[in-house]
């Protein structure tokens, strides 16, 4: 810490000097820029990110109020998860997923799990469309619409059906890390079970970090087709993991 910031922390923590609190919030405000930028990048067009900025700033203020410099953590390490958590909470509050999209997603998921139980294998697009009483093309449109945001690692996206950050713990205990790892290993097993295309898309997107376009050129399909396959994979994983 630079002397000026060190002084500010002392004055805020020891004397509750509000002027120092302001200095700290101003000093660290670019953290919100960084987090909001990355979270927004994963959201579908149309979501009003102006509000997210506000919630992010509250997350930063909360972090400044709770931070205990004596614990030896760097403030950035402490603050960033809190800022992200606040933004994701804000997202949930504005209910950013259109209701029809939620409905469609649920319907597809239901069809997938019913058929999965009946067929004892992953259902094909044709079978899913048949169960839903729509054409395969319509199913693909639904999947495009359902291509909801990727605001985090796959395990968060899937296990809740909603973007969610694990609650920031004041001391990143081993339990939380363990729970995380368990979710991940279960996820891995399920991903391996996916049909070939879905498995490939998930692996290339989350593990290789390829863009949808890059995956498209691997599979020889359009970017939007990749997006549909990705939505289907997420829905399949969700139905398996919540079974």
């Amino acid at each position, binding site marked *: 810490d630079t002397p000026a910031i060190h002084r500010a922390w002392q004055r805020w923590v020891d004397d509750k000097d509000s002027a120092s609190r302001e200095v700290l919030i101003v000093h660290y405000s670019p953290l919100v820029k*960084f987090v909001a930028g990355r979270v927004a990048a994963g959201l579908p067009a149309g979501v009003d990110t102006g509000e997210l900025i506000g919630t992010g*700033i509250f997350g930063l203020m909360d972090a400044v109020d709770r931070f205990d410099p004596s614990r030896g953590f760097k403030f950035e390490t402490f603050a960033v*998860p809190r800022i992200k958590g606040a933004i994701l909470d804000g997202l949930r509050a504005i209910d950013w997923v259109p209701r029809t999209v939620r409905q469609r997603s649920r319907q597809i998921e239901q069809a997938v799990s019913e058929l999965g139980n009946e067929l004892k294998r992953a259902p094909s697009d044709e079978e899913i469309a048949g169960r839903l009483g729509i054409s395969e093309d319509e199913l693909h449109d639904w999947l495009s619409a359902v291509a909801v945001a990727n605001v985090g690692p796959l395990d968060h996206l899937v296990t809740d059906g909603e973007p969610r950050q694990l609650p920031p713990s004041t001391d990143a205990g081993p339990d939380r890390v363990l729970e995380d790892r368990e979710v991940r290993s279960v996820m891995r097993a399920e991903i391996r079970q996916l049909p070939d295309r879905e498995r490939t898309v998930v692996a290339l997107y989350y593990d290789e970090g390829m863009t949808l376009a*890059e995956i498209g050129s691997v599979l020889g399909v359009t970017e939007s087709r990749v997006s549909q396959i990705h939505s289907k994979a997420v829905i399949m994983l969700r139905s398996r993991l919540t079974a």
Partner: protein
Amino acid sequence: LDQLRAERDRLRHEEDAVSFVRRLAQGRIDLVEAVRHRKSSGESTSVADIIRSGVGPAPSTGSARPPRDTDVAADHPLVTEFDQLCDRLGFDEMSELDVPGLDRLHDGLVAFEAVQSSRRRDLFERIDALTAELVRRYRDGDASVDSLL
């Protein structure tokens, strides 16, 4: 193939730190500009406004890129270097600075940001070239996701 991935990961880790400190620098540049404007224009801008200029405009949505972690290497040497630069230029005593001092602070931050942005551009070139190679291998069947999973 493993070497390809290892090299790409190495570059992406480096890019994470550069992109992080770049965003910090951009935020602080915008903060200084807001304070400088307030000083020269005599307008009364609230602290909330100052904070908002540090946070910047509402970020854009709908990226074609996979989600990026926000886990930051807060103790990365680049971050330390940047903090020390800010300290030298008097960033945290901004209110005490006279206009020339503010200008020096501003220009110092802009110079730093420019360096980071150019490093970032260079890293993207190299990362995206490696990704293109990876795409080729997958397309030609020389690589399969099984090794990943």
